[in-house]
């Protein structure tokens, strides 16, 4: 007998549990969009080459088009619909809005999820290809515009909103730092 090509799974998305039966071929991207009606996550290339489908899986940014839904079971998934705090926009979202960090808006959910993760990765001390000295002794690299550009390069924007996106990420980083300092 042929092995089953579909499975009943539970997806944890934006703090909610969803039980569904998926074709094994279904990507997390398609499951979010076609099954859970979470269409904020966009399909730009379906091949991991544009970043429009970026979501957070267990807090890490991933491209949901190359993530099989069946393999995402039991992981905590955050999509653009789960980034804001209720009606209050996340500082990254607010900065994108205020600084016009988008035009057509199609890459925007991916850019925003990616930017949220970039701030976390940077806070965790991760280096990037723009980091001159990757040795831990060199200390965490300052989040310069060049660092932001390199770290955000997995998110293509065909409208060419890069300048404003970088400014938005920098502003969100600064506001996050201020909030941290205020809390300290």
């Amino acid at each position, binding site marked *: 007998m042929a092995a089953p090509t579909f499975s009943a799974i539970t997806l944890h998305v934006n703090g909610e549990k969803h039980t569904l039966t998926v074709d094994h071929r279904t990507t997390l991207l398609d499951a979010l969009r076609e099954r859970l009606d979470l*269409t*904020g996550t*966009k399909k730009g*290339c379906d091949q991991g080459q544009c970043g429009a489908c970026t979501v957070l899986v267990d807090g890490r940014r991933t491209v949901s088009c190359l993530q099989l839904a069946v393999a995402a079971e039991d992981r905590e998934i955050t999509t653009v619909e789960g980034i804001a705090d209720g009606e209050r926009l996340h500082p990254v979202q607010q900065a994108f809005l205020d600084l*016009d960090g988008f035009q*057509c*808006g199609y890459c925007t959910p991916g850019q925003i999820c990616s930017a949220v993760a970039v701030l976390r990765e940077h806070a965790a001390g991760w280096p990037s290809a723009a980091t001159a000295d990757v040795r831990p002794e060199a200390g965490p690299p300052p989040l310069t515009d060049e660092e932001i*550009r*390199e770290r955000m*390069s997995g998110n293509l924007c065909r409208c060419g909103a890069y300048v404003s996106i970088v400014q938005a990420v920098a502003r969100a980083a600064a506001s996050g730092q201020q909030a941290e300092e205020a809390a300290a």
Partner: protein
Amino acid sequence: MTTTPELRQAVGTAHTRVEGRDKVTGAARYAADHPFTELAHGWLVLSTVGRGRIRAVDTGPVLAMPGVLTVLHHGNAPRIRGDFVTMLGVPPEPTSVLFQHDRVPHAGWPVALVVAETPEQAREAAEALVVHYDEEPPDLDFRADRGDARPVDGHLPAVAEKGDLEAELAASAVVVDAEYTTPEEHHHPMEPHAAAARWEDGRLEVLDSNQGSTWVVSVLAQMFSLDPGAVRVRSEHVGGGFGSKGVRAHQVAAAMAATVLRRPVRVVMTRRQMFSLAGHRSPTVQRVRLGADAEGRLRALEHRCLNPTSTVQDFVEPGAAPARVMYDAAAHHTANLVVALNRPTPTWMRAPGEAPGSFALESALDELAEQCGLDPIELRARNEPTHGPVSGLPFSGRNLLACFREGARRFGWAERDPRPGRRRDGRWLLGTGTAAASFPAGAGPSTAAVTAEADGTFTVRIGAADIGTGARTAITLVAADALRTTPERVRVRIGDSDFGPAMIAGGSTGTRSWAWAVRAAAAELRERLVPGATIPPQGITARSDTTEAVGALAAAERHSFGAQFAEVAVDTATGEVRVRRMLGIFAAGRIVNPLTARSQFLGGMVWGISMALHEEAVRDPSSGVPVGADLAGYHVATHADVPLLEADWIDDPDPDDPVGIKGIGEVGIVGAAAAVANAVWHATGVRHRDLPIRPDRVLRAAAEARHA
């Protein structure tokens, strides 16, 4: 109607996008984001051969696969019409007239549509479909000396000639004679082409991603021989277009399948399919000959642009067009030619004609400046025409030199050492370059409706499309001023063919055309509103139609202008080129919303960087199949390629437009690639006349320079 005496003018004031919150929260729904019960999924199958005929389509095995509902192909598809001219004055795009014959004029020609219950099933079945072809060898040989090249009138006459070219060249003190090439480029909006079609109450409803629902609805109605009122097309949010989102195979496929199956069908192009079905900018080979006197004044100007088109439709990329606007000469010859090959039909892509044409012309000007020992800006100042060089018509505002003056001041141009190869920063050679930009300013007829609602707000309805331009917000600001209210009290609804005919988002004419109609309807509404009177529950609506007003515009040379400045770094050991900074100063009519306008200009400049350094689609020389047909193979600029760019503008309201708008969507890319290429010359002393300026080309140039 309430009016606030201290009301601030909205036009000219920065305003975040009215749909911005929806876009940053993921709430904005695009064409493929709408759920339907019973939705079926269509997957297009494209030809794998470069030319030939379809002998057979083996539908049997595929129809037996799980979930497969139908396979449409030339043998069973409903008959549709393709023998008409659309509102843009051209026949329908050949690949959109689906499945009407067995001929395959190029690789990637749509040969079948597989429809299934789920996208996974449709994809597997489409991959499994076997199509038998009788193959013929394709003609793919694009080169400058094709004997069958012929002039073709597009939106402009193919050929414009005055004066004795050879005599003026012979009499010139300085002559530049150079060939420039640009590659096949693709729009690649981030949102792939997508459409969902269904029949609802006797009407064909299409949720689509397009640049003009009026355009799409009229083409679909004619194709399917339906009354225009029996078709409705909506596209509330559009994930970029750049010229590619007209009527293409996906809408027709979805409509065809929905008609056959009598249930909703969605068809989305894959990124790979977009290389064949979504249109592209044709490659060009351009020859520019300039002759000037010792002071750099042009005596002769020739610009010939050749592009390949398909064997099934002529499309001309009018690269010689900018010369007709920019510079005069006693002998002035321009020609746009095509040669028909077994390639997909090209189409308009952001600044068609001007983008590739300005690369050649503005590079040639830089070469002339070098040979004359003149500053490139001074050379342009000496050749600033008073009237249209070909038309003889007056310019309706030509602030090009003002752009150069402001740009030069802000960029620090005066400190530039004109000699190439003088500045170095570590392994990088540094250089700066400049180029001029222009793009026609136009308007098209539109209708609009403005309603005063009982609650004191206003609703604007217009068949506009916001493909990322900020049009929805710009219309809001224009309407607010015309209604003497605040933008917060105006709601703009767009992207619906039921709102009446309107201009497309194309040719930098959208916002101007729509603003004109909205302003007229708003003015009419204000006249009809009696102060103090109650507004009925259904509101009071005024309508406008600008056909007459737009048609009454006097003939003139109407253009936006700009000056582009770039600084690049070149490592001649590795061939890497990086843009370090860029500045564009534009004279492009009244700027309605400075926040989004800046984004538009910057976006165009990013396209210029991308065109200069990265973009190039490659086809297999024997089959014509695109190679590396994905976004890892076709490089568009990403974050790391784009430094801090600056765009700004000078006051330049159009005297003949009710709002003063000219249009800003395209001028930002024009001249940008030339500015980068000219900067690469300044950095290295080597001219790059072929785009993109790839590492291998820089390395070869460096090797040749060493051996020279």
